[in-house]
């Protein structure tokens, strides 16, 4: 086994730092024809909610310069069907499973989801998706008015993370939104509340208009922007958060190859997640894992951990 790529996220040991971004990889089975899933550092599931969600009306995606917009609206089969229909396949893969969860209402739903998942031993970690821009407002105690997402408010972030932290010992990852003035403030609130790690960034809120029909190109009008177009924003935010917190960071946003994965690691990420690029090249994660190995060998670096935050200023 190749040791140089091992990293730790909370209590979770990863054989390599490359995982997939929630929502871009389904429940892994969709990719089984195109790659060896066993090689992944970890699989992060599509976000699940307590009850099934039908998702938003189509059109849900459109292409933009070096990126895409999506407003899927967290379509998912709900907790029970996730456990009965999706989890058995995920367990068979044999890599850490990180389950992404979200709430339509208040933090009680997060707590209930986390309690149920806490009892399933094959689940390695829980990712709190408090940053999906495509569902209608989430309510939470301690949260000020006029804020759309939990992760746009430090108090609301603290409240949700704190309440989930109380019910699970599993590694807890909090996923942050870039649609904020100061992502560090949100990161610090999540850290104080006891999260084990931070995942950033979720998509940037965007919009595109069809000039022929004069209609928005996404039925929900606004949507989340992803892909290489957002990479510089994501790298910057990774660096800002790295300087302010001691938590391991899972960096993501427009990673398409080894070089772009390394950018995040150098900016301070312990691990990286590949998102939109999975749509373009379903086996891209494997290429990046091989590419990182090659980079270490070529530069005589024994351990990838020595590159975390190794940005020279």
């Amino acid at each position, binding site marked *: 086994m190749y040791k140089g790529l091992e990293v730790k996220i909370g209590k979770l040991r990863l054989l390599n730092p490359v995982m997939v971004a929630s929502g871009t990889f389904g429940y892994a089975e969709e990719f089984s024809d195109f790659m060896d899933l066993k090689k992944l550092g970890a699989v992060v599931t599509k976000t699940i909610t307590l009850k099934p969600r039908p998702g938003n009306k189509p059109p849900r995606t459109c292409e933009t310069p070096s990126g895409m917009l999506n407003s899927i609206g967290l379509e998912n089969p709900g907790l029970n069907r996730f456990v009965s229909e999706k989890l058995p396949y995920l367990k068979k893969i044999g890599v850490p499973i990180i389950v992404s969860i979200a709430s339509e209402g208040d933090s009680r739903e997060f707590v209930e989801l986390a309690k149920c998942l806490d009892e399933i031993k094959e689940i390695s970690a829980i990712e709190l998706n408090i940053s999906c821009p495509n569902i209608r407002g989430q309510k939470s105690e301690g949260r000020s008015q006029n804020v759309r997402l939990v992760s746009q408010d430090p108090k609301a972030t603290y409240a949700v993370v704190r309440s989930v932290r109380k019910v699970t010992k599993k590694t807890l990852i909090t996923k942050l939104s870039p649609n904020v003035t100061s992502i560090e403030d949100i990161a610090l609130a999540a850290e104080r509340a006891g999260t084990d790690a931070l995942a950033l960034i979720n998509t940037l809120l965007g919009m595109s208009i069809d000039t022929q029909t004069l209609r928005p190109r996404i039925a929900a009008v606004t949507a989340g922007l992803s892909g*290489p177009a957002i990479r510089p924003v994501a790298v910057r935010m990774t660096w800002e958060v790295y300087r302010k917190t001691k938590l391991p960071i899972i960096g993501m946003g427009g990673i398409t190859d080894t070089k772009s994965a390394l950018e995040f690691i150098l900016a301070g990420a312990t691990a990286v997640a590949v998102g939109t690029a999975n749509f373009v*090249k379903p086996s891209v994660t494997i290429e990046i894992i091989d590419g990182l190995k090659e980079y270490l060998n070529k530069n005589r670096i024994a351990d990838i951990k020595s590159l975390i935050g190794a940005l020279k200023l």
Partner: protein
Amino acid sequence: MSEIKIISNKNIKENYFKMVLDASGIARKALPGQFVNIRVSDGTQPLLRRPLGIHRVTGHQSLVTGIELLFEVVGDGTRLLSQKKAGEYLDVIGPLGNGFSVLGSRFSVLVAGGMGVVPLLFLAERIIQGTEKRNKVNPVVLIGSKTKNGILCAKEFKALGCDVKVATEDGSQGLKGYVTGLLEDVLRHYPLPGTRYPIYACGPTPMLKEISRLSQEYKIPAQISLEAHMACGIGACLGCVVNTKEGFKRVCKEGPVFYAKEILWS
């Protein structure tokens, strides 16, 4: 997914191109109505793959050699694809999706609007190959477009023995009006009133919606191939869904071919 060699890429007329790929692996598995997802640029612009219907399988039934694609240049992706040359390689995933169910009926009607001919030529070949000779009534193929320049493949369908009828919106070829007018005529008179036979259709949404209505009115099942913007093409992103009686379904995975009666039109 693999690097696949381009055998030829020809501008057949105006903005229409025919590309042949050296893809025996895809060809062996391909069913009419399925598609391939092609990366048109190595860079990030355009970022996403382009899904293209399989137009034909090349070679003979026992020894297929590749697939043929027919596409119209409508944007950056198809423009880049049109510039590819024979001998170059393309990253192609496929075949993807659920194609048409070829039903063993004596007679069938194929309805194409514009580029809707793409999967229907492949389908017509399979229908004709699968029909027992003594019982055969050649399929009727109805092709519609705005003008005669957009009428494609009429010759190819005729060569297979299909009975081809054409409609154009400006009356420059065939019936003046929509192709669904031709369909209504067939449903009334052909071959015997009251017989059940399948309709297979591909084309723009308003056409498919009207075919859906007609298929219900005449109680004749219609299989329709839908088009949607896709991000992944493999069922992961849930971006290309269509509203059906059983909730949202993925055009790339459960489709692109659906029974018309399943769809909830907006």
